[in-house]
């Protein structure tokens, strides 16, 4: 495998916006041609770095992804793949099968799958290591937390439970992103009360954050400069948490995160 420099990684990611991929793929031939080459490079880079088994090498890829919030796009795609794959609706394979000839689309689709699955499977880009979930899981959640299949089930949280989540976020220094993610994901399981829960969480975060605020991740500190979660949302130009979530464009999302919005730590 050819050695890849970190500069090459940065340069490759400068020209690609994964979140715009679907839109441009359908309408822009020039973009198709450009991403064909760039995506080959990115996958080559990921493969090379992944094969090195050195987590530090992946920092450059991670940072490059974070710059354009692409990490969340890939993460959503990975969790969405898991969710869709367990849908038990059957399809008559032979009846619904068609043949077509579009090698470019197949290449892009094949590459995308490797990119999504590779990032998800690496367990470095995304915190999905189920083997250690007990250690990494201070918030008691069900296995389906990423993509709750119990959307219609009424889930309620007590103030005490939300306070516990807030404390976990503030004390879970190593896995801050993960703690925020899991917490928000949980609270969004009850869409009717999510605004109440989020403001309660904000309130507890304010109460429990310690004096030395610089010890906490910048994105958390920036978010807590707003007195309530509503204010935080409004400052981003949205009228409500629901609009915020909708505009963020996560088809399967039941969460927003402070960490991932700003690209994580």
């Amino acid at each position, binding site marked *: 495998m050819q050695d890849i420099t970190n500069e090459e990684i940065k340069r490759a990611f400068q020209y690609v916006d994964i979140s715009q991929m679907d839109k441009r793929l359908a309408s822009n031939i020039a973009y198709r041609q450009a991403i064909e080459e760039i995506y080959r490079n990115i996958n080559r880079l990921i493969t090379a770095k992944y094969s090195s088994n050195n987590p530090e090498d992946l920092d450059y890829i991670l940072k490059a992804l974070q710059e354009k919030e692409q990490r969340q796009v890939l993460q959503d795609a990975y969790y969405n793949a898991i969710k869709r794959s367990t849908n038990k609706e059957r399809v008559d394979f032979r009846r619904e099968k068609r043949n077509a000839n579009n090698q470019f689309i197949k290449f892009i689709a*094949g*590459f995308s799958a490797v990119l999504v699955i590779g990032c998800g*499977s690496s367990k470095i880009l995304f915190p999905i290591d189920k083997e250690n979930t007990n250690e990494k899981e201070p918030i008691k959640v069900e296995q389906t937390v990423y993509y709750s299949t119990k959307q219609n089930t009424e889930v309620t949280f007590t103030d005490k439970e939300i306070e516990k989540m807030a404390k976990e976020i503030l004390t879970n220094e190593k896995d801050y992103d993960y703690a925020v993610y899991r917490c928000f994901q949980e609270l969004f399981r009850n869409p009717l009360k999510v605004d109440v829960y989020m403001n309660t969480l904000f309130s507890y975060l304010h109460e429990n954050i310690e004096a030395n605020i610089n010890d906490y991740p910048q994105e958390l500190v920036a978010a807590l400069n707003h007195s309530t979660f509503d204010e935080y949302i409004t400052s981003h130009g949205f009228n409500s948490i629901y609009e915020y979530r909708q505009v963020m464009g996560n088809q399967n999302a039941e969460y927003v995160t402070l960490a991932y919005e700003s690209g994580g730590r």
Partner: protein
Amino acid sequence: MDFVNINGTYHIILDEITINNKKYVYLAAENSPLNVLIKKIVIENGKEYLDGLDTDDEVINALDIYYQKHKEEIGQ
């Protein structure tokens, strides 16, 4: 290249891999290539169906195997 119509959306068949005597079909939406999913083939009354996987772990295992198989060839 083959497509399968799933709920009105054509999905490209990326690969078919047999794992533990079960055949898994890997798909990606034609117009949204990040939209990946896996189905497994079940045969009933002589007809082949694409069915959902049973557990998250089964999906994750199948995804890992796909990645291990394809990471090199697409990286060339």
